[in-house]
């Protein structure tokens, strides 16, 4: 097999895997946007917050240790125990639900009926707030995230030797694909199926869709808007936790994790803000597109690092021709 072609296919496959991770973040956006019309810029920071909380609980860190030490002059850092990953994840989910409740009660309850752009700016403020709180709570240094089901059974790292061996024998060229990316793709698939099932077959899911369709009509048939919004923010928090675990295991838990929100934005613009399939397809297109562009055009001709802006330019060009994105609802404006 042609070396160049095989390499292109490998870049393509890696792009698909990266796209899955983008889609994972974008899913959280879509959930909140569909149910409340809020474009949640804080989704990336929520992923960071969730990952930091998970690591903090796992390692038995004392929350706000630095602040307490600074104010009271004490020297507390750790409780001295280690929590099993599974229990830590449960606790983190509880924290994320608490966060969802607080966000709904203290922020968005007071902003009902405001223009979307005001809500968007409020989520930018929320992102800053949450980032500050997360850093105060758990410290801002780089932390390693290890999620293990039992001793030795952890999230896999490194390249997949089996895949490389098999493809080398079959095609004469070893594919390099990260184990973690494969796991992330499987988890993302399960998550999407789970979310769709939840929306289709449960009472709460139906209520959620009703709210998404029309707030007032949903209210008039007895759906509690407050409850649904807390539910949706909790779900988004859960998705953020999953994304945080995957990204955190890949590159460590640190501030740059919150920037994945910026990677998810063009994915959404491309796929349309209101569509779960759109988030996935958009994520795959962006993931593959930016890897291929970097490989074929960016690195040889433009000096590299085009991944920062390619997704945005692609989305921008696309929007000029189809403002609602690939799968978005077309909003018809009449005078």
């Amino acid at each position, binding site marked *: 097999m042609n070396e160049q072609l095989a390499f292109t296919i490998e870049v393509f496959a890696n792009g698909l895997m990266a796209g899955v991770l983008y889609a994972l973040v974008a899913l959280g956006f879509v959930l909140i946007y569909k149910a409340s019309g809020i474009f949640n810029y804080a989704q990336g920071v929520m992923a960071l917050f969730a990952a930091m909380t998970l690591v903090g609980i796992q390692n038995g860190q004392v929350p706000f240790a630095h602040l307490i030490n600074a104010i009271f002059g004490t020297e507390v850092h750790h409780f001295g125990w280690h929590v099993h990953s599974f229990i830590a994840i449960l606790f983190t989910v509880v924290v994320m639900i608490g966060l969802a409740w607080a966000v709904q009660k203290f922020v968005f309850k007071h902003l009902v009926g405001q223009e979307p752009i005001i809500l968007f700016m409020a989520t930018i403020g929320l992102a*800053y707030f949450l980032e500050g709180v997360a850093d105060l709570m758990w410290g801002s240094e780089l932390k390693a995230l290890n999620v293990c089901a039992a001793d030795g059974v952890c999230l896999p790292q490194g390249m997949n030797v089996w895949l490389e061996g098999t493809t080398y024998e079959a095609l004469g060229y070893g594919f390099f694909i990260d184990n973690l990316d494969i796991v992330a793709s499987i988890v993302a698939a399960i998550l999407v199926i789970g979310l769709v099932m939840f929306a289709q077959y449960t009472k709460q899911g139906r209520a959620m869709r009703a709210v998404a369709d029309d707030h007032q009509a949903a209210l008039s048939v007895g759906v509690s808007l407050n409850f649904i919004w807390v539910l949706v923010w909790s779900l988004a928090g859960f998705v953020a936790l999953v994304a945080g675990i995957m990204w955190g295991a890949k590159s460590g838990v640190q501030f740059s994790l919150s920037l994945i929100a910026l990677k998810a934005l063009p994915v959404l613009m491309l796929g349309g803000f209101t569509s779960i399939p759109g988030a996935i397809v958009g994520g795959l297109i962006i993931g593959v597109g930016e890897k291929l562009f970097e490989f074929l055009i960016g690195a040889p001709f433009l000096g590299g690092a085009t991944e920062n*802006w390619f997704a945005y*330019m692609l989305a921008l060009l696309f929007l000029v021709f189809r403002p609602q994105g690939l799968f978005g609802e077309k909003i018809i404006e009449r005078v």
Partner: protein
Amino acid sequence: MFYREAGDFSTTYAEDQQTFPIKFDRYRYYVVLFIAIVVVPFVINDYWANSLLLPFLIYAIAAIGLNILVGYCGQVSLGTGGFMAVGAYACYKFMTGIDIWWGGELLFRLPEFNIFFSVIMGGVMTAIVGVLFGLPSLRIKGFYLAVATLAAQFFLVWLFNRVAWFYNYSASGQINAPERDILGVLITGPSTEPWATYLFCLFFTIVCAVIARNMTRGASGRKWMAIRDMDIAAEIIGVNPLRAKLTAFAVSSFFVGISGALFFSVYLGAVEVGEAFGIQKSFLVLFMIIIGGLGSIFGSFAGAAFLVLLPVALKVVGVDWLGWPTDIVAHLNLVIVGGLIVIFLIAEPHGIAQLWRVAKEKLRLWPFPH
């Protein structure tokens, strides 16, 4: 009582329409200008100039620019950092003489511009770039547009990082402001006097504020506000959305570019584009106008002052008085700024400017409110 209107009669239309119709208000404004122009340069020192006054003046220009776009025309932009970078790099190129190369040969070279005109050219170039990136606003609006302007932010920063022509092929990839003077007084470079840089920035700030104030209450400002309030209705009463939106982008970018040029040449002196003009800068300026007040020139000043003062004040209180580590204070700063954004959006969407307006109204009637 504090705002006497007694005996303050307007007898012409011009008097009725001036910016400060109350005489007392007007004189206070003159006093502020007098202090800023005549008194401050004599008492200013390096610390005050570099940590408070210069950033305040420069951010105020950027906030006015963004406020025209977001507050008056309703087009949210997150590309401010990128546009400031355009201003900075254009200013740098004009300062050092623009050179055009083709096939390894120097085709021609512009003479070096005076720093004053370099800054203005920085604004002009940014206006052109701003219009280019404003073009999608005709098709998309709301936060689709906000996200689209992020394209400008990332693309421009990447461009200035990668294309060596912009930083004159320097080894570090940074741009450094060479020493430039006006009538023999150094404005840029390492050995400037604080009063000179201060007056230079103050001049631009005052001119920009006066221009912006008069544009926003004139015909173009009304068109922008019509577009902001309801674009379809505006179109029906005869506002051309294309012209209105693109002029808003052009004027806004012009101011933002001037602020970027000053930020680089006068304030920092040496700039690495990703650090100085990253996305954080876009958000910072956006926060200034949210806290200060959308759609208000005074609000731009108030917001800039607030967000420049806040970290300094926190540092004085937290680090110097209480002896906390600096990183905790930095995180507290994030919490406070984020919290304030949310609180202002909920409680007072028109920001500090509105608080000031209410206070003025109360003071006008005090002590007999009825």
